[in-house]
């Protein structure tokens, strides 16, 4: 655990976890390449109709050039190549900042081009990638490095707390606690065998529903629990994301949120060390 007080180690863990998630989602985008054609689901000609930018705006014209089909496929392929350069040790011997900048820019382009279809894992990945880039501009700058880790940790804790806070306002999560069953019962985010297994088991459904709300709301307490208390929260988080990946098919959330856990451990250990002092 002492390793997590080493900023370089924490950023390295963060980089590998986020790159696993980003590489999977980038290959998934490429797999769906036909849907970026102008007569398909992600038609840029249709999506661009929402824009209010002036066409004389140089930045917009550059973005428009990069985002239209088939140029956008080139952006995705470039992103994948850069991910390989970053992830495989020994290929790229120079500063990682330029490569991370390319991934950040491609993330922003993908986000801009996707008014629908993006999810929380894309947002968390973008947050982590931008912070990684800022750190790698000058890894010797410990103030920026620490601020980056606190920023990631607090964004992650904010995500769990917000999800729990709003669930606590919902009837299906609190007074009629059957939200977990109802979600698992859908074809969109659920699974028929799981729904069949849970049907009629109100005790188990209530436990799963309430425990999700309770742990999410309490998750920020991980910062003050120290070691080994933090393992309880982070272990729950890991199990939660694994289950979401298995049952709900939310594969990219696992890697995006796991990438933030190193920063949470760092902040937790840093706070604990102040208290010991």
């Amino acid at each position, binding site marked *: 655990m002492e390793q997590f007080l080493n900023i370089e180690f924490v950023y390295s863990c963060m980089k590998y976890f986020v790159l696993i998630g980003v590489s999977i989602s980038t290959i998934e985008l490429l797999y769906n390449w036909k849907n970026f054609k102008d007569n398909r689901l992600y038609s840029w000609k249709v999506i661009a109709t929402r824009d209010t930018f002036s066409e004389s705006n140089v930045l917009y014209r550059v973005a428009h050039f990069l985002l239209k089909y088939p140029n956008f496929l080139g952006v995705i392929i470039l992103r994948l190549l850069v991910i390989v350069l970053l992830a495989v040790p020994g290929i790229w011997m120079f500063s990682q900042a330029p490569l991370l900048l390319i991934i950040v820019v491609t993330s922003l382009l993908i986000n*801009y081009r996707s*008014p629908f279809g993006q999810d929380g894992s894309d947002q968390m990945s973008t947050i982590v990638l931008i912070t990684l880039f800022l750190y790698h501009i000058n890894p010797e700058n410990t103030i920026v490095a620490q601020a980056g880790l606190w920023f990631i940790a607090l964004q992650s804790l904010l995500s769990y707390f917000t999800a729990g*806070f709003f669930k606590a306002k919902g009837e*299906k999560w609190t007074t009629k606690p059957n939200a977990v069953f109802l*979600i698992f019962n*859908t074809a969109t985010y659920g699974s028929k065998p799981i729904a069949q297994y849970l049907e009629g088991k109100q005790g188990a459904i209530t436990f799963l529903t309430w425990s999700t709300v309770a742990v999410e709301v309490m998750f920020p307490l991980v910062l003050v629990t120290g070691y080994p208390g933090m393992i309880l929260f982070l272990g729950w988080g890991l199990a939660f994301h694994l289950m979401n990946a298995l049952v709900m098919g939310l594969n990219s959330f696992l890697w995006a949120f796991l990438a933030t856990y190193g920063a949470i451990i760092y902040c937790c250990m840093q706070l604990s060390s102040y208290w010991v002092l």
Partner: protein
Amino acid sequence: MNLSDIFTYVIVGCLGFWLLASIICQFNFLRLENFFRRMDFFSLLPRWSFFAPNPGVTDYHLLYRDKDQEDECGRWIEYPIASNRTLLGAVWNPKKRNKKALSDAVQTLVRSSSMLKASEFKTSMCYIALVNFIASLPRDTSGRVTQFMIMESYGHLPDKGPKMLFRSEFHKI
């Protein structure tokens, strides 16, 4: 103050502002959420209220039918938005994005159908995107125009039957 100090202050300030804006956007403090979101072209301000407060407990179904030269309507055909869950899907799930995109578009369309005027509605991005998508699907027949419909059902173990939420006009393919 040297260049490195300025860099440090700017970066730390930007991260602090980003975090603050993210918090404001979750809870709409001071009713500033719309102000920030309007400027958020790159989805940098997250929405962390997953499945809350009211989780999605229904499935949407996208159906379409064509009309031929003789004005005869074909049968409704469903384009599956949801897919069966597999173990591999925990690692590799390329259909997830398309499913989410269709689901987002359908949800937005259903929501806005009661809020917008017909003229605004039919020129909304989601409506055009869905017409565009439906028109692109491979067809057996020589359909001239096409129409889509959105239905809602109540999961694998439903306690009530499906219902229709929306039916579009016919559009040229």
